[in-house]
């Protein structure tokens, strides 16, 4: 069977691009879109795949990562999908990619102007753990009322002495909308702030997308006396020795011996020992 370039028909792609334009115009605001069924399951990145399908052209160079790595099963599967239905070139090198589709990480290598990050998003609503009803959260966003989230942070501080959110750390975009950065580790959140790259977010199952245009303020929620303080493994990478990258923790044996290695495989390969 033959499929249109990048799987979706041109009308569908155009409809998604129109929603994307709206999203770029209102940074951090969730825009509904007519999400299609894709031949990969919901939760695997159907939102990101649709955004990539809508924006990709024949000259693009695609990089796909999952947990920071190009060789994880889901990243391989999505890359193969686009190779099959769009036939575009792909790369594992962050610097060479024009579109980077990602699940749960932002590359360690600084992004450049002209690059597009496409994030796969499971739950676009940053408030859903506190208020599951969409009708309510829309009102809270309209009023800019984020007291629920501040209370949550305060609750953590009284219980644990610190904000205990490791991933999907809530951020304020352009001083207006509270946004889910997708389930990236809190460690990655500062990379979103004033990034020269265009950042697009797609949630297929929830049928919503949003965007952070280049050079936009993205500020993690915190208090003046309890500033944002992400946690990460202190050990250097066992392969490349980097002490500044985000690490995977790998269990080596039955005694529970651990090893820490860069989750960003491209960065790890290029980082001098």
């Amino acid at each position, binding site marked *: *069977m033959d499929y249109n370039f990048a799987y979706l028909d041109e009308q569908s792609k155009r409809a998604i691009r129109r929603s994307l334009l709206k999203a770029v115009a209102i940074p951090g605001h969730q825009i509904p879109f007519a999400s299609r069924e894709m*031949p*990969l*399951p919901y939760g*695997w990145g159907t939102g990101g795949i649709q955004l990539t399908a809508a924006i990709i052209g024949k000259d693009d160079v695609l990089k796909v990562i999952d*947990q920071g790595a190009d060789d994880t*099963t*889901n990243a*391989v*599967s999505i890359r*193969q*999908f686009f190779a*099959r239905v769009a036939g575009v070139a792909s790369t594992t090198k962050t610097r060479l990619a024009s579109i980077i589709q990602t699940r749960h990480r932002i590359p360690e290598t600084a992004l450049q102007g002209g690059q597009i990050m496409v994030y796969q998003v499971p*739950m676009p609503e940053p408030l*859903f*753990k*506190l*208020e*599951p009803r969409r009708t309510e959260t829309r009102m809270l966003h309209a009023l800019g009322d984020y007291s629920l989230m501040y209370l949550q942070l305060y609750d953590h501080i009284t*219980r*644990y*002495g610190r904000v*205990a959110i490791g991933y999907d750390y809530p951020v304020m975009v352009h001083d207006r909308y509270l946004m889910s950065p997708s389930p990236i580790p809190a460690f990655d959140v500062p990379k979103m702030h004033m990034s020269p790259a265009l950042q697009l977010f797609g949630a297929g199952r929830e049928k919503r997308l949003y965007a952070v245009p280049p050079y936009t303020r993205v500020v993690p929620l915190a208090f003046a006396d309890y500033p944002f303080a992400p946690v990460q493994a202190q050990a250097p990478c066992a392969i490349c020795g980097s002490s500044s990258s985000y690490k*995977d*923790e*790998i*269990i080596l*044996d*039955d005694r*529970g011996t651990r090893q820490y290695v860069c*989750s960003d495989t491209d960065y790890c390969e290029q980082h001098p020992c």
Partner: protein
Amino acid sequence: MSYVAVKGGARAIGAAHQLIADTLYPENNASDTPVDQLHQQLDQQLRLGIDRIMAEASLYDRDIAARALLQAQGDSIEAVFIVRAYRATLSRFLDAEPLKISDSQPQRHISAAFKDVPGGQQLGATYDYSHRLLGYFQHLPAPQSAAEPFIKSEDAAAETRHSGVMQLLEQEGFIETSTAAPTEENRDITQIPPGFPASRAQRLQTLARADEGFLLGMAYSTQRGYGQNHPFIAELRQGSVNVEITPPELGFTICIGQISMTECQMINQFHGDTPEQATFTRGYGLVFGHNERKAIAMALLDRALRARELGEKVQAPAQDEEFVLSHCDNVEATGFVEHLKLPHHVDFQSEIATLRALRAHPKNSPTEHSDGL
């Protein structure tokens, strides 16, 4: 002609059953496949469908499940019903020894919480990373090397037993310790019906035979804010496990066969009021056959249903034990929902009579206890 069709029961029922028989065993059967062979074929090619029937029927018998699926024309709930009814006729002779799941040779073994784990990540047969394109598996690229069906992430010495991810987290004190349920709580719920509040063992038994679709929907609701879990799959394992019994007259353990099982060990949000007390909590799923969807959903629901035990507010439907456990059985549910097809004209007649009486005596007039009340 008077409308008395409901009285002509016997002939109508006979004809109705003949219509089904004609579909199941058509006279001009084009394929000419003997029925026994059809059962075998169902077992081989609709393997996962058979697994689902065995799980929801709580009876591990592939042949019986295949027969039921054919008799039910593919309606899996009807098939579950047939197998449950057969199961009710079987006598029990012994309780098996607890299954040693971690000793099993997994066909599939993955962890989402760690990149690599003792025993290695092993994909096995899975649709997970396939593309849902018609004919996908007929046009696979030729394998690069000789047949290598099981590729592990590490060269795990095949026969050695590996500690589970949960045990390793336990050693670090990061997860609550698992405790075996007291024996009286383990009693078979199909022999001794559980009440409320149910023990965790009773809940798990109920969930293991519950309708997959119901569990899926309820589990999904916890992921969307209706009862929080923050789940990570520590280990998902599918493979064959030995079933062992210890006959009293022998006094030692013998293996009586192997069954395929899917197990999900879930790590969930930490719990505790102080940093020292904070530990991750557990959710557990175990299902007959190969059914990862259900094992995962079960583990999510197990954790959600522990809300009261862990001092959480019970707010969402998935945390409400009585709601979930009373409505998750598809044979019970389908019976009661579909029984609305049975004649109800006596009850309905009384409702009509009541409504007539209400209309006949306008408001404020004394109520009359007429027929039907």
